[in-house]
């Protein structure tokens, strides 16, 4: 068994185990931590495929940013774990049905992909040309051949981001805000005003 095969089975087994633990662990924070293990091992599988750029992006985006925010939200939730588990029996048939539908769809998709081997659904690009790194090749394809699709994906993300901000943004009235520019612009000239009041006299401000 070569090192690559060993590494593949190691990553794959850990990945599946962690994925199962995501839904089996009772504490939601532990679930998110298992999910992070999952992402990390998926990155390992990408490296075995020679897609080191994608592997690094997966770790940066999913492990470094998305999962942190997940963890952030889940840690703050106030959940009664016992109550959460009591609904298990009631939702089990529904969950199984959803899982079954997804499984059928995956099997159908994989099956048709194999059946369509002779049919040119996509004109698949050849591998990385010589003298070019993976990263350069992805960039040169993404920004020329798939430019419109790439830009459209960016727009969809932008719209969803704006939507999220619009939905959660609220104007808070009466809060005091710090204006840094205002503070920096303040000088002794317009802040201090010398006065020499006589005995028993007040100062006009």
């Amino acid at each position, binding site marked *: 068994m070569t*090192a690559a095969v060993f590494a593949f089975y190691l990553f794959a087994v850990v990945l599946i185990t962690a994925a199962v633990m995501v839904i089996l662990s009772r504490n939601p*924070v532990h679930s998110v931590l298992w999910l*992070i293990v999952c992402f990390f091992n998926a990155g390992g599988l990408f490296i075995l495929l020679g897609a*080191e750029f994608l592997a*690094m992006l997966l770790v*940066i985006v999913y*492990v470094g*940013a998305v999962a942190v925010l997940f963890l952030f939200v889940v*840690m703050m939730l106030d959940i009664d774990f016992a109550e959460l588990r009591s609904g298990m029996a009631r939702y089990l048939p529904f969950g199984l049905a959803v899982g079954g539908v997804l499984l059928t769809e995956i099997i159908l998709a994989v099956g048709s992909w194999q059946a369509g081997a002779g049919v040119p659904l996509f004109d698949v690009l050849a591998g990385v040309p010589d003298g070019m790194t993976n990263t350069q090749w992805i960039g040169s394809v993404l920004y020329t051949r798939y430019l419109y699709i790439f830009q459209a994906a960016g727009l969809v993300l932008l719209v969803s981001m704006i939507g999220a901000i619009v939905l959660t943004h609220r104007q808070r009235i009466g809060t005091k805000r710090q204006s840094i520019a205002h503070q920096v612009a303040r000088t002794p000239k317009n802040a201090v005003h010398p006065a020499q009041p006589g005995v028993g006299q007040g100062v006009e401000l």
Partner: protein
Amino acid sequence: MTFTGWFQSYLGDGLGWFAGTLVLILAIMLPVMVGVAMAVYADRKIWAAMQMRRGPNVVGPFGLLQTFADAAKLFLKETIIPSSASKAVFLLAPMISFVLALAIWAVMPFDAGLVLADLNVGLLYVFAVSSMGVYGIIMSGWASNSKYPFLGGLRSAAQMVSYEVSMGFILVAVMLYAQSLNLSDIVMAQKGNVLGLLNGNIFNPLLFPMGIMFFITALAETNRPPFDLPEAEAELVAGYQVEYSSMSFALFFLGEYANILFMCALIPVLFLGGWLPPLDWAPLYLVPGFVWMLVKMAFMFFCFAWVKAAVPRYRYDQLMRLGWKVFLPLSLFWVVVVSGWLMFFTDKFVAAPGSVVL
């Protein structure tokens, strides 16, 4: 014959590679650990000098062995696990901190060709590992099941995610200039960068602001003062480390300083010309590149210690304002400026493989 090749000629391909790499890893890790001990000592000495104190001066000559004495004292203490802690996560957190802080050194080039893993996505690897560093802190904060660590963990998570965004943009500008993600290539791209005379992106007016911003972002990423909100002792006692003692605390401490040292090595690689002398002048190349690298690291560490002694801690909302409202727009704008310059005034994009002439 390469170093690993020598092992392979005796032990066979697989085992030889394994043994050779293991020795190389130790050859990086042990100096880093000694460096950490010296860095802690230097930190305390510089801090003391700024406050007109003497600092550690009792253990060993000039107090040089102070850190080792502290470590020995720490290891002899009892490991305490709070009864209401989530035990596995509580023990995993310091290990994750420590392992990631060491793993990141794998791609650091100390001299031409003197690098353990010459990845062609080296910079992304650095970014990925440093962005995972937040888990050690966030997990320890949550698993301690105590309010100060929890607040420290939350602060750290928000802070590191915020500053990673602008850090990413700064790295984009550097990699656009170097046309590569490989750290060795980035260093070599800085040779004769300015007028064929000065080595280093920092001397380039286009990248100088990026260098300054990266230094500040590095302070925030490593939870150094003035951005040490996660462990602010005035508000949170010691933040996420409150419940840790003995070895588990030591792992956090070592990991933190290993990370700081790494940032002190990364800034030279990205901006100060790595192992190249600052002037592209032949006699300066007689000094080994390794020495230049160490000198630059020492200088950067001095700057880190200097900032720690000189600057008061940020308030949390000001920290967030600096990250999101100042650094993010500025670095984004500067990426546009740098790429515009490269597009219209140089031929770097035309010469890149796979580029299309517009």
